[in-house]
C-alpha cells in the first residue's frame, strides 16, 4: 500500500469522523450532558489533526490544533458549554469540513483567520486563568523545531503540554491494576520499522494509551542492534501495556487509526496474544542487559498477566477499522469486524454474480425445453443464486446516514441565510441502500431540504401569527417499503399554494389558461422545467431549475417523486427509489422481432385500446383517450428503427409511462413477462444509443435492450405537444 492509498484511507476516516462529530453535536444541541459525547467529538478532531500532520496538510493541522485546544477546555470542564460556545463549535465544525475537503481535493485551504481568532478568543476570553496559559504555551517552537517537519514540532508541543496529564493518568491506571488483571486488556505495541517516516512519533501513541489508563509494563529492546549497527531512522522498540477492562476496545483501536498493523490486543484471561506480524526474532544479547530487565515501577501484575489461563475470550490480531456506527459499545460485546475493499473488486464481484444469474436462467430454460424444468437441484440452484445475488448487493449497501449527516449543516446555513428557525428531525438513517443511490441522491435531497426551508417554512413571526411554534420542523426519513427505499422530506410550513402555482404555470405557458387540473396535477407543476414561484431569485432556491432537476435525477435512479401538501399544514416530498441499480424490475415486451425491457418504475398502466379510444391526427400521429386525458402514442419501433412491427395501436398493446415530458403511451406488439433483469451497460460494452438505457441477457441467451423512457419521450416531445394542443 503506498502513501497515496493510506492518505485516501485517512480522508475516508475523516469523513467518518466528521459524520461522528455531526452526531455528537446533534446530541449536544439536544441537551445531551454525557461527557463522553464531547469526548468523542474531541477524539474525532484529534484523529484528523494527527493524520493531517502525518500527510503534511499544514493548514488543516493548524486549524484542528486550535479547534482541539478549545474542545479540550470544554471536555476538561474548564469551559462551560454555553449555547453560544456550542454555536461557535458548530461553525468551526463546518469550516473543518471545508478544510478537509480542500485538503482532499488539493484546493486552497478556506480562509480560517477569522474563525481561528474566534476559537482563540473563546479559549482565552472565557476560560479560567489556567486554561489560556496552556493554550498560549502550545505554539512557540524553538529554532531547532522549526527546521523539523511541522508535525514533529506541533506534536511535540502537544506532547509536552499534555505531559502533566500523563503522569496522573498513569498513577490512576496503577490503581486499576486489579481490574487489569481480571478482564483488563493486554496490548503489545511494536511500531513498524519505518514508523518515523512522515514525521510520526510512536511515543505519541504510547502517550495516548497511558492517557486512556494504560500502564507500560515492559519495554522490549530485544531487536535493538548494537550501537554501530543501529539505523537511527528505524524504530526498534516495542512495549507491553495493560489497560483496565473498563476502557472501550474501540477507544484503544482508535489510537492506532494510522498504525493498524503494529499492535496486538487481547483481553486478559484470554489466550496468549498472537505474535506481531513481521516482528524480527530477538537474537542480540541486549535482552540480557539490566535495561531490558527493568520494568516500569509498580507493576507487579505485569509478569502475572501474560500467564493468565482461560482460553475463553478472543484474541484479535490487527484491528479492522470499524466504521459501523451502531456497534454495541460494551467492552464485552463482540467487536464490529469490518474491512475496506477496493470498489473495483466489489463491482467485479457484482458483475460476476450478475453473469451467474443470467447463466442460471439460461440453464433453466434449456432444461425446461428438455422437460427437466422441475428437477429439484435446479430449484435449489435458483434459490441459491438469488440469495447470492442479494447478499452481494447487500455488500454495496450503505446506510443513508452518509447522506443525512450532511443535512444539519445545510439547515444551519439556511437558518443563517433566511432568518428562519428550524428543528431537524431525522428517522431511519441506518436504512441501507446501494452505494450508487447513496452517492447520487445527495443533490436532489439537498434541493428538497433547501426548498422546504426556503419555500415551505414561514418566517418566525408569520408562524406565531398562524398559531404555530416559532421554530419550524423539517423531518427527514428513510424506510424500506415494498422492496424500495422511500425517502421523505416533510415540513410543517405553509403548504403548496395551488392557486398561486396554477397562476404561475399559466403565466409561464406551462399549461393552458383554461386547463382543468386536479390538486395532484397542480402540485406536480412545480417539477416543470422553468417553473418558479419565488418572487425574486435567491441564492438558496427560486432559480426555477431546481425541482425539475430533482425529478430528473430521481428518475435517472429509477425512482419517482410524490408530493403531499395541505395548505397551512405543510408539505411532504417522497422519493421512492430502487434498492440497487444493478438489477431492475422490467416489463418484457416484443416489438417486431426484438425483445425489449421497459422499466417498471416508469409504467403507469398497460392497456389494449378499445374502439374509439384512438384519435388519429396528421399523417402519422395518434393519441389515446385515457379516462378523459389524451396521451400521445409513441411507436417504439419508429424510435428505435425496428422494422416489421405492429403499427396499428388497436391491434398492439399500449404501455402508459410517466416521463420527464409527462405521460406517453408506448406502442408495442405484445407483453411477454414481468421480471427482474440484470442491467448491463451499453456504454461500457458497446456504445451509447439514444433511446436505450442499457441491455440485459435473457434466459434464452438473447440480448434485450432496456428502453430509456425519458429519452424516447423527449424525442417525440415537440410533436406530442402540438398533437395534444390540436386534440384539446
Amino acid at each position: 500500500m503506498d502513501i497515496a492509498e493510506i492518505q485516501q484511507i485517512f480522508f475516508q476516516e475523516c469523513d467518518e469522523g466528521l459524520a461522528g462529530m455531526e452526531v455528537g453535536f446533534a446530541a449536544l444541541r439536544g441537551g445531551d450532558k454525557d461527557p463522553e459525547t464531547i469526548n468523542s467529538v474531541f477524539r474525532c478532531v484529534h484523529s484528523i489533526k494527527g493524520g493531517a500532520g502525518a500527510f503534511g496538510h499544514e493548514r488543516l493541522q493548524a486549524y484542528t490544533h486550535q479547534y482541539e485546544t478549545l474542545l479540550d477546555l470544554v471536555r476538561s470542564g474548564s469551559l462551560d458549554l454555553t449555547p453560544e460556545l456550542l454555536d461557535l463549535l458548530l461553525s468551526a465544525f463546518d469550516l473543518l469540513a471545508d478544510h478537509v475537503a480542500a485538503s482532499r481535493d488539493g484546493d486552497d485551504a478556506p480562509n480560517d483567520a477569522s474563525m481561528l481568532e474566534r476559537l482563540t478568543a473563546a479559549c482565552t476570553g472565557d476560560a479560567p486563568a489556567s486554561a489560556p496559559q496552556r493554550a498560549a504555551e502550545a505554539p512557540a517552537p524553538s529554532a531547532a523545531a522549526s527546521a523539523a517537519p511541522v508535525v514533529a514540532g506541533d506534536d511535540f508541543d502537544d506532547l509536552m503540554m499534555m505531559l502533566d496529564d500523563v503522569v496522573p493518568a498513569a498513577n490512576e491506571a496503577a490503581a486499576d491494576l486489579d481490574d487489569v488483571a481480571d478482564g483488563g486488556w493486554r496490548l503489545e505495541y511494536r511500531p513498524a520499522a519505518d514508523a518515523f517516516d512522515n514525521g510520526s512519533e510512536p511515543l505519541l501513541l504510547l502517550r495516548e494509551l497511558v492517557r486512556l489508563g494504560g500502564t507500560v509494563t515492559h519495554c522490549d529492546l530485544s531487536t535493538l542492534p548494537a550501537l554501530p549497527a543501529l539505523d537511527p531512522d528505524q524504530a526498534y522498540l516495542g512495549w507491553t501495556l495493560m489497560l483496565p477492562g473498563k476502557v472501550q476496545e474501540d477507544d484503544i483501536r482508535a489510537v492506532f487509526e494510522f498504525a493498524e498493523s503494529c499492535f496486538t490486543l487481547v483481553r486478559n484471561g484470554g489466550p496468549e496474544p498472537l505474535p506481531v506480524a513481521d516482528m524480527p526474532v530477538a537474537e542480540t544479547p541486549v535482552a540480557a542487559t539490566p535495561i531490558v530487565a527493568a520494568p516500569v515501577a509498580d507493576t507487579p501484575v505485569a509478569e502475572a498477566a501474560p500467564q493468565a489461563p482461560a482460553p475463553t475470550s478472543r484474541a484479535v490480531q490487527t484491528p479492522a477499522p470499524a466504521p459501523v456506527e451502531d456497534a454495541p459499545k460494551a467492552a464485552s460485546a463482540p467487536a464490529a469486524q469490518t474491512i475496506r475493499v477496493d470498489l473495483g473488486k466489489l463491482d467485479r464481484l457484482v458483475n460476476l454474480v450478475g453473469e451467474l444469474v443470467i447463466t442460471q436462467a439460461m440453464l433453466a430454460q434449456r432444461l425446461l425445453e428438455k422437460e427437466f424444468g422441475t428437477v429439484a437441484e435446479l430449484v435449489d440452484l435458483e434459490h441459491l443464486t438469488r440469495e447470492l445475488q442479494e447478499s452481494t448487493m447487500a455488500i454495496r449497501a450503505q446506510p443513508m446516514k452518509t447522506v443525512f449527516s450532511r443535512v444539519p449543516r445545510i439547515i444551519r446555513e439556511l437558518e443563517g441565510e433566511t432568518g428562519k428557525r428550524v428543528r431537524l428531525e431525522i428517522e431511519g438513517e441506518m436504512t441501507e441502500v446501494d452505494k450508487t443511490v447513496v452517492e447520487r441522491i445527495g443533490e436532489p435531497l439537498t434541493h428538497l431540504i433547501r426548498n422546504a426551508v426556503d419555500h415551505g417554512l414561514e418566517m418566525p413571526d408569520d408562524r406565531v401569527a398562524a398559531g404555530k411554534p416559532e421554530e419550524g420542523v423539517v423531518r427527514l426519513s428513510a424506510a424500506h417499503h415494498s422492496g424500495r427505499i422511500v425517502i421523505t422530506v416533510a415540513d410543517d410550513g405553509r403548504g403548496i399554494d395551488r392557486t398561486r402555482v396554477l397562476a404561475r404555470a399559466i403565466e409561464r405557458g406551462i399549461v393552458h389558461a383554461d386547463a382543468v387540473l386536479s390538486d395532484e396535477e397542480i402540485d406536480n407543476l412545480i417539477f416543470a422545467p422553468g417553473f418558479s414561484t419565488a418572487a425574486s431569485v435567491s441564492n438558496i432556491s427560486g432559480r426555477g431549475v431546481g425541482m425539475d432537476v430533482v425529478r430528473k435525477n430521481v428518475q435517472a435512479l429509477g425512482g419517482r417523486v410524490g408530493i403531499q401538501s395541505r395548505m397551512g399544514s405543510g408539505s411532504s416530498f417522497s422519493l421512492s427509489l430502487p434498492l440497487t441499480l444493478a438489477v431492475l424490475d422490467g416489463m418484457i415486451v416484443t416489438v417486431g422481432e426484438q425483445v425489449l425491457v421497459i422499466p417498471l418504475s416508469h409504467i403507469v398502466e398497460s392497456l389494449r385500446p378499445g374502439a374509439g379510444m384512438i384519435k388519429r391526427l396528421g399523417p402519422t400521429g395518434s393519441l389515446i383517450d385515457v379516462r378523459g386525458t389524451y396521451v400521445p402514442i409513441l411507436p417504439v419501433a419508429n424510435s428505435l428503427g425496428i422494422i416489421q412491427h405492429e403499427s396499428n395501436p388497436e391491434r398492439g398493446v399500449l404501455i402508459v409511462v410517466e416521463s420527464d415530458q409527462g405521460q406517453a403511451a408506448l406502442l408495442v406488439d405484445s407483453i411477454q413477462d414481468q421480471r427482474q433483469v440484470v442491467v448491463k451497460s451499453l456504454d461500457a460494452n458497446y456504445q451509447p444509443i439514444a433511446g436505450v438505457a442499457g441491455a440485459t441477457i435473457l434466459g434464452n441467451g438473447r440480448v434485450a435492450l432496456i428502453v430509456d423512457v425519458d429519452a424516447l419521450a423527449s424525442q417525440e416531445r415537440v410533436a406530442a405537444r402540438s398533437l395534444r394542443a390540436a386534440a384539446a
Partner: protein
Amino acid sequence: MSIALPSVLDTATASVLHSTFCDAIGRDEALLIDGSAVERVGQACLQVLAAATVQAQRSGFAFRIDEPSAPLAEMAKLAGLDSLLSA
C-alpha cells in the same frame, strides 16, 4: 568525556546523536552525559541512548546521564526506559 545533549532530541536529531555516541564510545573512555537542557525527546533518540548505554556496559566503561531534565525523565519513564537514567 562529557557530552551535552541538545534541547531537541527529535527524529531528525537521532542520526547526529548516533554519530556522536559512535565516535565517543570508540574512544573507550567513561562518558558523562549532560541531559539538563533536553526539552523534547522522541523514540529515535531514546533508542540511540539505550543502545549507547548497552554498548558502554558491554565495553566495560561508565556511561551516565547526569541531571536529566524533567521532559527527558518523563519521556524515558513513559517509554519504560527510566532505568537509562539510573544506569
